[in-house]
């Protein structure tokens, strides 16, 4: 918990994070002015913009851990931490929980900001819109797990690139849905969190979010265990 607390406190203490959140909310609000340019589709556009920016924020937060873990390993901070009565798995779980909490807080703030902006502009935020954002908040869990997995064996730049590429391809794995165990078990399907069209047109159930959350946790368990296994064989400075 100390490692998790350290991770999320460090990121949330950065002023730039809040500056970016404000920028995101300004961009969401600016969609209101696109009424003529979009032939009256500006309401839908505002929801879409908010979902896309929230997703980008979630990806960036997940990627941020790929800079932290390799840096700590390189500078020997991790070795100092691990010299205390702390297992390598606990170290990784702490980092994962920390980044997940950070991600949920930041995407949650964007969601709240969107609700406020949308209500001020049009009024009547639907539950599907909020649920669409909640799914993005939940997607932070598997994305962070992917980032932690790459962080344990790759350098900062390589881990970040690999994470972004993996997240990109994780939206296309549904084509492998026929391959049991591999699909959803080893290969993540982040498209399960993509109900952005449904967030606009309606139809997302609370049960779906809950099951998606459970899947995210299960995949994180798999990815973190794999990361821990790799990490256990790694020589630390």
């Amino acid at each position: 918990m100390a490692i998790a607390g350290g991770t999320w406190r460090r990121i949330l203490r950065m002023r730039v994070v809040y500056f970016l959140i404000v920028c995101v909310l300004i961009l969401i609000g600016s969609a209101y002015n696109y009424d003529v340019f979009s032939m009256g589709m500006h309401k839908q556009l505002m929801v879409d913009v908010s979902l896309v920016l929230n997703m980008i924020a979630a990806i960036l937060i997940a990627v941020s851990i790929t800079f932290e873990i390799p840096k700590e390993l390189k500078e020997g901070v991790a070795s100092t931490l691990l010299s205390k009565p702390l297992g390598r798995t606990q170290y990784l779980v702490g980092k994962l929980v920390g980044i997940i909490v950070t991600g949920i807080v930041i995407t949650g703030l964007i969601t709240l900001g969107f609700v406020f902006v949308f209500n001020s502009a049009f009024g009547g935020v639907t539950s599907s819109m909020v649920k669409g954002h909640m799914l993005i908040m939940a997607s932070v869990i598997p994305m962070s797990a992917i980032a932690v997995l790459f962080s344990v064996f790759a350098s900062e730049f390589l881990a970040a690139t690999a994470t972004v590429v993996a997240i990109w391809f994780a939206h296309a794995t549904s084509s492998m849905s026929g391959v049991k165990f591999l699909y959803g078990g080893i290969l993540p399907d982040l498209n399960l969190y993509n109900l952005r069209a449904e967030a606009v047109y309606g139809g997302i159930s609370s049960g779906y979010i809950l099951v998606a959350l459970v899947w995210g946790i299960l995949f994180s368990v798999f990815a973190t265990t794999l990361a821990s296994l790799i990490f256990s064989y790694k020589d630390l400075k």
Partner: protein
Amino acid sequence: MKKSLVVHILVMVIAAAAGSFIASTLLMDQNKLSSARIKVGQKSACGFNKFIADVQWMLFINYCGSVGSIKKDNVNEVYTRLASIIRNDPDFEKAYEVGTLMISIEASEKALELLKIGCDNPRLSANWKIPFLAGFTLSRNVNAKDLPAVTKKLKTDAEGFFEMAAKRSPSTPERYVISYLMRAKAAKLGKTWKAKGSKDAIQIVNDKHALLCAWINEANSGYRGGRVEDDMASYSIVQSSTKDMTRKVLSLASFLKEEHPDDPNIAKTLNELKTSILKGQNFCGKCLTVYAAGDKYCSSCGEKVVVYGACDKCGVVKKGAYCSECGDPKTEKKQ
């Protein structure tokens, strides 16, 4: 083998198995939520397809504004942009309603192709404008020689689209939807018409005549009003949404009688009308307007009509078995 390695592998196997099972369930739920999703290129854009569709829509509007009008040299570009929007967001109603209308003259078949996607999308099953536009484009903008091939490709015809539009209407369909549906039914009749239960075929003289025949067919269909669930097979959206059907048929018949007084085919059709829809009703022999009991002249054309429902003795309209004026019990005059 180390104990921790076994534990790690065991945890991974259990998590992967459970994760795979849940992911498959979620995927099925997701596909149920939007069956169109599986057909689109959702995967290629990291799930940003919906947003990309919005951006493409704005660029599409910008492009259409820059070209002034849709002509042969730019219609393909407009179609490509529109198809891309629909691929990224198959639920984008405005792209169907506005976009396809733009290309419906220059590239009617391509417009129909996109409209068909909209008609088949279960998430747009409440939208009646899309099938109406499809029916309109099919009946107005497609060449007669290409029509059979296009209809075969779409697996439905203009009548099917108009009927879909009428059935999807939230309450009573707009009058023009029913009007177009009846015109499509009339166009399907061809050159001859055979009334229900009749052996003789009547030559169709013109479009109005065909329309009258279609209306007679509709009036003679089995549906007698009421709830759809009660009699699905004989349910007619035209009958259930046309309040003054007899008046509509009569005004059309009256017009044809006036325009073609000596045409034997029109006369045969009118006879058919009298023995089917107007059976048991009293109507003016000249203009076919239905008149009320006790009327001596037609209120529409002033022609003398055969009085019915009046007392033989005093001429007052009878309300029951006996005349309320003179108490005469005799039977009333009949036409």
